[in-house]
């Protein structure tokens, strides 16, 4: 059994590395919630600007937040934004992708037009305009919805491309001639082959959503009082932590963000390899 497991690991190295990284993160947050008192992540709950010490392993920031508590509380919030926006994006995107690729006609050209133009427009700027307009106290979930508003563009494009190529295959025609209806063909014939691609697209969308949300937060457009990773970086920049040499203040969020992105990246590569084995030789 061990040999087979080892062979599987060797074949899908990227996938395993991705899962391990995200597993570590989940462990950190899980144990953190048990061990650390997360409401210490609120301002004035600890002496300000303390380098990492016994009672504050990650040190404290200028507003008196215990950074370990902030990380333990903030990471799940950022991930939540990523997952909500990612799932919404892929959900809407794949439905639109499916419909436009399978039913073609005017619907297809409209969706294709929106997607092509939408992707050339820099997403962050549009999100800024939206966030600025909504200005009154954003919550984490509202943040997710804002990011989701553009997160569906890329999934729509990739799913449409996949379905278009599959649709020409013979087995869709045979299914139709065997009496299967349109939706049935989508679910029974196209969907199973699409799952690996969908999974890779989902992980991509989550990663892009997290990046967008952190970007907005760093610009100060995030949920001001929540301890998400992006907001922590905003305060780092706001208080010029770099220049003042408070290195511990930004190392923690950056380390965690790195683990998040590397984990998701390896996961995408791993899933891509499963989606089309030919890629396997490339890595």
């Amino acid at each position, binding site marked *: 059994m061990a040999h087979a497991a080892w062979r599987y690991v060797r074949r899908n190295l990227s996938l395993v590395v991705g899962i391990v990284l995200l597993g570590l993160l989940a462990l950190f947050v899980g144990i953190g919630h048990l061990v650390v008192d997360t409401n210490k992540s609120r301002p004035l709950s600890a002496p300000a600007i303390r380098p990492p010490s016994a009672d504050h392993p990650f040190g404290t920031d200028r507003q008196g937040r215990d950074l370990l508590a902030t990380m333990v509380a903030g990471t799940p919030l950022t991930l939540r934004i990523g997952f909500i926006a990612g799932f919404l994006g892929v959900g809407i995107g794949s439905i639109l992708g499916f419909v436009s690729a399978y039913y073609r006609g005017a619907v297809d050209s409209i969706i294709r037009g929106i997607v092509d133009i939408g992707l050339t427009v820099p997403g962050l700027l549009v999100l800024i305009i939206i966030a600025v307009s909504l200005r009154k106290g954003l919550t984490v979930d509202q943040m997710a919805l804002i990011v989701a508003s553009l997160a569906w563009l890329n999934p729509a494009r990739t799913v449409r491309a996949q379905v278009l190529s599959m649709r020409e295959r*013979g087995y869709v025609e*045979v*299914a*139709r001639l*065997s*009496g299967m209806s349109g939706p049935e063909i989508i679910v029974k*014939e196209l969907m199973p*082959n699409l799952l690996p691609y969908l999974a890779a697209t989902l992980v991509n969308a989550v990663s892009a959503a997290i990046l967008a949300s952190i970007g907005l937060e760093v610009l100060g457009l995030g949920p001001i009082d929540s301890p998400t990773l992006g907001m922590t970086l905003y305060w780092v920049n706001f208080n010029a932590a770099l220049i003042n040499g408070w290195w511990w203040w930004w190392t923690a969020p950056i380390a965690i963000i790195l683990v998040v992105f590397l984990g998701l990246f390896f996961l995408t590569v791993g899933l891509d390899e499963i989606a089309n084995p030919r890629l396997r030789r490339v890595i």
Partner: protein
Amino acid sequence: MTTLLEARHATRIFGGGLFDRTATLALDDFSLAIDADRPAITGVVGESGSGKTTLARVLLGLTAPTTGQILYQSQDLQTMSRQGWRRFRRDVQVIFQDPYGVYNPFYRVDHMLTTPVAKFGLATSRAKARELIDDVLRAVGLRPEETLGRFPHQLSGGQRQRIMVARALLLSPRVILADEPVSMVDASLRATILASLSTMNRDRGISIVYITHDLATAYQISDTIVVLYRGSVAEIGDVELVVKQPRHPYTQLLLSSIPLASPERTWLTAKEPVPVAAADRSDTGCKFAARCPSVAPPCREAAPPLFQTDPARAVACYLYRDAPSASGDHSEPGRSSR
């Protein structure tokens, strides 16, 4: 003569939309009738780009003709009721060309057979369904235990194509449309599959439309042959007449180009190769004019209609304009002319 499946002046144009000026005429005023009473094998022969596949898709109702009608039991497909379509889908089956693209890699090959059984309710119980499937597999020369339960990539192209034939057989159809069924299969297996097609026609009374680029296989199993050139019928008639005494210059060119597997060396003539005229897609006149050795002025003005040169053969060529013109609307091959 009651017709089973019939194309009446079917034409299909691709492109030609708002921006796309290059409209391609895939099928041009094509008429063909499959006889309901005497199931026969009709061979449709044509080069690539002659509209063979478009014809198959139009007859299957997968693509609607731009003008003209496709009738099944004298009902137009466009206006047929849902009930009518279900019957049409069951009675008219297909064998596709590519044994690799026709199988969904996600499922085992059984999926190709179990789906029609379920969808058309061919069997009351699972055992009955399995029995039905085993029969058709044996009918095409495959052993069920060696074939079922396998994934497509575990079977050879020949085996997969035979499963496709079995699938068509499963629904005991009245017509089978075979679009290049053996062109991607090895020579040794080609004969076996074509033989099973002709036994299906002979024993089970299934009319077959055999679409191919290979005139020799068409000759071997067809009763009637339609020679297609860029979407329109060049010559149509009894297979012996058309192959042994070809009338249309294009049919003659086709026959002379086939290298025969015999010791006599007649194929490689030493004459200078015919200068390949750029295929000018002139709209008016006979489409073959540009390449025709006996082209004449009338050929360039208008496309020649079908002339009934023999009781069982019609040719679309002005060389035979003194013959009575075949009944344009409804040319039944193999029937004595009125």
